[in-house]
């Protein structure tokens, strides 16, 4: 699609290009490329981000009071594109910085003053304290409690599927502050300080024998009243907004092979694997491989078409379509890789990278078909929000939460 650049925007383009040419030097680019830490952010990166924030390129659509320029989204996009063109990080955070956006939208003045800038500079590490063992699909069923005592809240409960909890400074926490109202109305949303005795983080071992997540045990943890976002009892709305930010930026979380052993280049992985295994000529496999590739390509076409079509508002529904499609794609890829390897898939380990990949991908597919809303929940969402089918009777929707039936 062709771009119609107005004069005002031309000035903007000139400015950002000018600034980048002066500041995004080869040396800095090199330095940032070198360092590649998983959770931690390097000093060099923080420094660069500092400059970007300073120059008001980080969140151009935000008000000037908050490091922004009050631009509209299209103008902000231009800046983002310029940064992307030269592969410079730090722009577009008004679109993709979940933490800062949530805080700006619902945080109290003091907390914003304290954390917005550091968040934009990635000086603060964050994590999500949403899911609980008893509240997975039914997130509003959380039982972690936050009881107000004077100028702070005392929090008790357990969270699960938290990534980055060990290194996080704050966690975006939903906890129940009122047990006498229906489940959606008694929840509050906090920035919970993680570096305190009341917070115990235990790594969670996945079926893939990795640990990318934690369980977080919260015992009499203290959260200043000033860290409440929105008002007490409006946590569900804050959460809904935060989840929307997440979705709008979340690409598919699917991971590729982990063996790291390269497969055929520029070729569909399943084709390359079948070729390598000398089984590419088998008609049964050819059909299954073609169909699996088709699922992937069709989902890409859908996403492309959806992106071209959609306005912010109904993005979630399309995301749901993509996520559901992706979980079939991933399970099929695992299944067919296993089939191609045959007896070889009985093995694993470094000496057997193909088996390692086939088995890992087969198990890790559940990360998508269960995580972030199971396929079954996704089908409900698609059926109800996209197709407009009626909801099921919700037995617990209007009960006071203390009367709601929960597991065990």
């Amino acid at each position, binding site marked *: 699609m062709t771009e119609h650049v107005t004069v005002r925007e031309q000035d903007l383009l000139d400015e950002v290009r000018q600034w980048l040419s002066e500041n995004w030097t080869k040396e800095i680019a090199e330095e940032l490329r070198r360092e590649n830490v998983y959770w931690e952010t390097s000093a060099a990166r923080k420094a660069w981000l500092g400059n970007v924030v300073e120059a008001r390129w980080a969140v151009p659509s935000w008000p000037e009071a908050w490091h922004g320029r009050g631009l509209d989204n299209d103008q902000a996009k231009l800046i983002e594109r310029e940064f992307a063109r030269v592969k410079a990080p730090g722009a577009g955070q008004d679109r993709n910085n979940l933490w800062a956006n949530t805080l700006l939208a619902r945080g109290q003045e003091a907390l914003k003053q304290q954390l917005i800038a550091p968040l934009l500079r990635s000086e603060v590490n964050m994590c999500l304290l949403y899911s609980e063992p008893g509240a997975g699909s039914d997130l509003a069923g959380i039982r972690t409690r936050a009881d107000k005592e004077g100028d702070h809240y005392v929090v008790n409960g357990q969270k699960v599927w938290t990534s980055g909890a060990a290194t996080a400074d704050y966690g975006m926490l939903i906890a129940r502050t009122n047990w006498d109202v229906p489940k959606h109305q008694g929840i509050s949303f906090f920035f919970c300080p993680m570096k305190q005795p009341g917070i115990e983080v235990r790594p969670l071992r996945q079926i893939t024998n990795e640990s990318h997540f934690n369980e977080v045990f919260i015992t009499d943890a203290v959260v200043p009243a000033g860290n409440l976002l929105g008002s007490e009892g409006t946590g569900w709305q804050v959460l809904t907004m935060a989840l929307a930010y997440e979705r709008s930026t979340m690409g598919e979380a699917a991971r590729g092979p982990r063996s790291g052993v390269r497969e055929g280049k520029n*070729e*569909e992985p399943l*084709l390359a694997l*079948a*070729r390598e295994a000398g089984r*590419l000529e088998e*008609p049964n496999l*050819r*059909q299954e*491989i*073609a*169909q699996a*590739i*088709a699922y992937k*390509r*069709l*989902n890409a*076409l*859908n996403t*492309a*078409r*959806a992106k*071209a*079509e959609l306005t912010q508002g*109904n993005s979630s529904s*399309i995301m749901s*379509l993509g996520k*559901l*499609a992706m979980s079939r794609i991933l399970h099929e890829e695992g299944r067919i890789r296993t089939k191609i390897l045959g007896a070889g898939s009985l093995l694993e380990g470094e000496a057997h990278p193909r088996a390692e990949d086939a088995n890992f991908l087969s198990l890790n597919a559940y990360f998508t078909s269960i995580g972030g809303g199971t396929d*079954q929940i*996704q*089908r*409900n969402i*698609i*059926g*109800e929000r*996209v*197709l*407009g*089918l*009626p*909801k*099921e*009777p919700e037995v617990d929707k209007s009960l006071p939460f203390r009367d709601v039936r929960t597991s065990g």
Partner: protein
Amino acid sequence: MWDKSLNTLSIEEAEEALKDDTIDGRLMAVPETAVRETMETSSGFEAGLWRQLAEMGVTGLIIEEKFGGSGVGPVELEAVMEEAGAALLCAPLLASSVIAASLLQQLGDVTVCENLLPRMASGDCIASAVLTGDAGNWTPEGVSVEATEAADGWQLSGRGSYVLHAQSADILIVIAKTAADFAAFTVDSKAAGLSIEALPTFDKTLRLASVDLEAVAASRIDAVLPVWDAVKRTLDMALVALAGEQAGGASKVLEFTVEYAKTRVQFGRQIGSYQAIKHMAADLLVETESALSAARYAAACLAENSDKSDEAVSLAAFACADAYVKAAADGIQMHGGIAFTWEHPAHLYLRRARSGAQLFGDSDYHRENYLQALGG
């Protein structure tokens, strides 16, 4: 409502075509009763509607303007076929306005084009192509007519089959084997030695016939490129048109099935509130949206002569065929008993879906082509 939010086209030109109410508006207006009447007739189409299609420019959609058509491309064709599929349109559109029109233009014999295309665009002349025999194999091996050159010109002998709407055709374009290669011919459907026999079809909205030729005098088309290349490109165009029809049909089935699930009440609840129905619908939406994407992408690739055309056309061919069959089949299950009755439209869509899935090769065939196009 819900589908519009997703179905609006991603390619500008196609958007234009769809915005043009004179096309989709009227096609969609064809009522089921009219379809049921038409499908019981021997010709399988209704002259009045055919004239309307001509007035709308549908019959001349892909015919170049210099030959009396509107000369737009596969993108617009695909968009129109989505509507045709949704409406179960009964007409020799695929036979004459797509296959015959495309084949003549691909073969590029100006004299023949000037003679036939304007009348085809105006709907006055219906043409159909004889490409395969009783084996229904759409590859060069499938060609089942032989051409021999006698002193007084070319003669055709053999038996063609699965010829779309041949029973209504004025002109047949016949692909035949010669000593050397393949050649294309035009034959008058009334020619001596030619006999056209209607084949009873499972899909009541479809018309097929066999064509027996015994030393039939035919005039050879002077092709500007190897004949089978022209046929291949024509089949690509036909597959894109069919894919559009299938994607449109599949979306339509899902739409009226979902509507029914919103109104049908059992055990005091709308059946659409049960996960059994709701989840089937959600899964179908993935398939129908994928079909729309595939058909439109293939059309765009053809329009741009993209090197992805083979890949995209094959993908659309099986993705749309399978999506339509699944949507039509699951749609009946979701309706329950009511859709087991002849009076309910569901089976008309299933019959059309099943037929489309076999018309130019089945999904396994297209999947195999797809893998080859991907380099596999």
